[in-house]
């Protein structure tokens, strides 16, 4: 399978934070969810992929092209939504159209205005007058109106109400119908990713600590809930992390079926991405 995005050994050092050997591979036609807590390195990774952050080491390839050498060619083919970074807010959606048609070769004004209508976005109102949700929708519409092959989205559903989030997710899914297209999106709203992502990559404190398919994670991984006595009988090698609550132990296991065969504990549930995140970050070993 051809890869649309490849990040190899990406390192980037700040005074108080460091990306350490980040490796990401996104095959064509797939959606990758990029999760991690605030300050884990999601935005820094995205900024490095886009060439916004400088002075990093490692190799980043998009569409098989080096992001430093083939910058223009790459950017013609990607659509971007960045957290809190956009057009100056005194401009209107109409202004954005007249600017973008002079920036992207493939800018599709007809498609852009169709999306504006579909999302009930006004053409002539300044961005500053739009609600946070409407603004986010405008950012997404702007990112997809030049027929990009790859969408790179940093928190695209943040600030949207459930209805708007569902609309946006439908849009992502229709975008991915074309098997040439892929999406790399970071999000705190892990339930959205459970619906759409084919791959989940988890970054913590600048390290990629997990990168698997959604099926592997949601089907194989499990959360075991047991008493102190039961916990003490479990071999440390058989779980990833555990968290002690007031009445029980929550244990993250990599293969719930194998665990179930080995131990006589009944409460083994499928895990949600949110539980996974919390246990991976706050859990102990």
């Amino acid at each position, binding site marked *: 399978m051809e890869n649309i995005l490849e990040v190899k050994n990406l390192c980037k050092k700040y005074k108080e934070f460091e990306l350490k050997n980040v490796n990401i591979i996104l095959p064509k036609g797939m959606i990758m969810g990029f999760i991690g807590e605030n300050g884990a390195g999601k935005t820094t990774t995205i900024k490095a992929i886009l060439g*916004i952050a400088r002075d990093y080491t490692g190799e980043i390839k998009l569409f098989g092209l080096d992001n430093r050498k083939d910058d*223009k060619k790459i950017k013609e083919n990607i659509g971007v939504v960045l957290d809190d*970074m956009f057009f100056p807010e*005194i401009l209107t959606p109409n202004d954005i159209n007249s600017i973008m048609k002079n920036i992207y070769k493939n800018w599709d004004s007809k498609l852009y205005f169709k999306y504006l209508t579909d999302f009930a976005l006004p053409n002539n109102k300044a961005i500053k007058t739009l609600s946070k949700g409407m603004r986010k929708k405008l950012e997404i519409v702007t990112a997809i109106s030049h027929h990009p092959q790859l969408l790179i989205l940093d928190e695209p559903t943040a600030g949207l109400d459930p209805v708007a989030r569902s609309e946006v997710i439908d849009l992502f899914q229709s975008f991915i119908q074309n098997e040439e297209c892929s999406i790399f999106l970071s999000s705190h709203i892990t339930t959205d990713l459970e619906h759409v992502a084919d791959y989940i990559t988890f970054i913590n404190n600048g390290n990629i600590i997990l990168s698997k398919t959604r099926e592997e994670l949601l089907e194989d991984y499990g959360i075991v809930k047991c008493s102190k006595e039961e916990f003490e009988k479990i071999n440390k090698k058989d779980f990833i992390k555990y968290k002690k609550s007031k009445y029980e132990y929550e244990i993250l296991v990599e293969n719930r079926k194998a665990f179930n065969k080995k131990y006589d504990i009944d409460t083994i549930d499928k895990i949600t991405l949110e539980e996974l995140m919390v246990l991976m970050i706050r859990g102990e070993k």
Partner: protein
Amino acid sequence: MLGFIKKDLLMIKSNIKILAILLIIYVVMAFQGQMDLSFLLPFISVMIMMSTFSYDSYNKWDAYVISLPDGRKNSVKAKYLSTIILIIITTIIITILSFTISYAKTNMIDFENIVGTIFGSLFATVLLQSFIYPTIYKFGPEKARIVLMTIIFCIAIIGGFIIQYVDFSPIIKILNFIETYWIIVFLIAMVVILYISYKISEKIYDKKQM
């Protein structure tokens, strides 16, 4: 490139009502002889462009623009080209208004005096903006204001010292020479100053961490 220039021009356009009101007030004041319109040139163009920098910074446009094709390469260039377009437009408007006011007040146009004053203002505008832009790219529009005020304060003190103790006769000789060819000399000087400023800004922007 055109898209990036358009962005700045559309931002200016969205403030057009405020600018029109300001212009009307100044024209009335000029009619009453309370001020010279040529001073508007540096004031208006610097003020307008500073506001575009502030909006860019507030919405983190400088980072977003890099995600667009040729964004890093064209962003600074577009800002300078938009500035040149703005200066040309404001110079034309102010020249026409100055001629009209001069004719309305005296029934004749004091061509030489008006062109001289406007050219002086034009030079001051280019000089000011050439100095301000690299400062903004380096420190951001908010910090740049403080840095600029500090620098202007220092220049005033050093300038005062120089005026008292330096012999100006060689400079006066140069100025006498310039008087003959002043338009050409000023035009070349403006282009050179603006180009140097652009190159400095481009270098600062290229190395900037967003």
